């Protein structure tokens, strides 16, 4: 009974804090972007402009929820939900702290990869159902980008799996007690992070949205809370990738004793979220073919090489 209660409390608490965080990231992103662009950002509503979150949410709620008459209605409605659901499901496997973990899958990483693959559906279906040429172009780009970056996203993690000997994220964190995997797998770390940016289609890899070319890409036709779902889904995606990087390469909740584990986890994750925003502030968007060429011609061979070397070293040390 008590165990069930803690379980439910963990789920509710995690859901609440994640959705709040995703909403707060609207404010964080705007303030940080402003910081790196010599501006101030929203600072009027409430302390430090924090109420901009409330204002933005209210505005989204009161916008007309328009479903285009030329769209494929059922699919159009489902698409944004898929994004949020898949991202939220991925969070179930992340160990936030020793006790705070919803499911300890022994195939945790595979589950994460599966969910991020499913996330592609939201973009493809959303773009397709909109029945709009810009949306469709965005969806096509999004699909090819996410599918190809998924390949070496998975492969770059295999080094970590080899070193820890487990797919379970809790075991991976435990395996980093002596040294974080970023020291042993720097190449894997960089590639996973790049693939993560492409996976969340954030700048500089926001090619499915590319507002200067495609209006708003796959979500051109979305309004009100359906757009809000894509919006929140994107921020949740950033949080997810940051949390995954923290867990896999930076020792998760491990850290010196003076702070509780959950604080270490939050700190590391937040640092990566800030780095995501810094990337947006500093890098231009590559061309579509450059992105694909970079993925298949540079990142994939490097990942395979990394995998080969890691495997050889692990074998050598075992014997």
């Amino acid at each position: 009974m008590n165990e069930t209660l803690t379980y439910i409390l963990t789920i509710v608490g995690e859901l609440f804090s994640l959705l709040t965080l995703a909403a707060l990231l609207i404010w964080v992103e705007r303030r940080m972007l402003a910081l790196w662009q010599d501006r101030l950002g929203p600072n009027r509503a409430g302390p430090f402009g924090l109420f901009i979150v409330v204002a933005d949410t209210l505005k989204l709620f009161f916008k007309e929820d328009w479903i285009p008459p030329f769209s494929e209605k059922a699919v159009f409605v489902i698409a944004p939900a898929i994004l949020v659901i898949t991202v939220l499901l991925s969070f179930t496997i992340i160990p936030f702290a020793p006790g705070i973990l919803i499911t300890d899958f022994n195939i945790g990483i595979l589950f994460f990869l599966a969910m991020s693959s499913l996330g592609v559906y939201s973009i493809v279906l959303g773009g397709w159902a909109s029945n709009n040429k810009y949306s469709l172009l965005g969806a096509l780009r999004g699909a090819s980008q996410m599918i190809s970056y998924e390949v070496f996203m998975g492969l770059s993690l295999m080094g970590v799996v080899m070193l820890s000997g487990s797919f379970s994220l809790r075991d991976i964190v435990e395996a980093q007690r002596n040294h974080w995997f970023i020291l042993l797998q720097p190449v894997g770390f960089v590639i996973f992070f790049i693939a993560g940016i492409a996976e969340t289609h954030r700048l500089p890899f926001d090619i499915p949205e590319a507002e200067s070319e495609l209006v708003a890409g796959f979500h051109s036709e979305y309004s009100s809370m359906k757009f809000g779902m894509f919006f929140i889904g994107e921020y949740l995606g950033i949080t997810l990738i940051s949390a995954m990087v923290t867990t896999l390469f930076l020792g998760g909740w491990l850290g010196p004793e003076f702070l509780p584990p959950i604080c270490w986890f939050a700190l590391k994750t937040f640092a990566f979220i800030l780095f995501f925003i810094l990337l947006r502030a500093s890098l231009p968007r590559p061309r579509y073919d450059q992105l694909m060429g970079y993925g298949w011609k540079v990142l994939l061979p490097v990942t395979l090489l990394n995998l080969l070397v890691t495997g050889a070293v692990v074998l050598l040390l075992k014997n």
Partner: protein
Amino acid sequence: MFSIIRSIWLTSLHMFRKRATIEYPEHKAPLHPRYRGRIVLTRDPDGMERCVGCYLCAAACPVDCIALQATEDENHRRYPEFFRINFSRCIFCGYCEEACPTYAIQLIPDFEISEYDRQNLVYEKQDLLISGEGKYPGYNYYKVAGLDAGVKNKGEGDNEEPPIDIHSLLP
């Protein structure tokens, strides 16, 4: 690759730069004296209206926001009967100021003319007239014009020679 890392680094250094933002209602940006803002009608040094109702400003206005009707007083001095500027149309291009032959219409560095009601943006003559001379102090059109409109007698203006007596033979 190096250039990417370099640009990330350089962007992050912008954190410590001075902000370009001016927090408007508390702090105001310094406006130049020739900033083109609200339009005013100025008076000459004697406190009379400078406007002579020549319609050149209305003709120059690209958005047709100036409307006026000229009339004359008992001294045959021309002045506008009404002078109306619709600021909801005005684009603050300053063509009216350039067209004005008597320096009457001027744009001043004031842009805070927002209203809740669009109709309140239509300024009548009493709203436009100011008691000062604006950017050209000391200028009085009727002092340099040849016309006698009660300001000076014929031949007594600035840079004006007395009229020649055509009935006299004296040089």
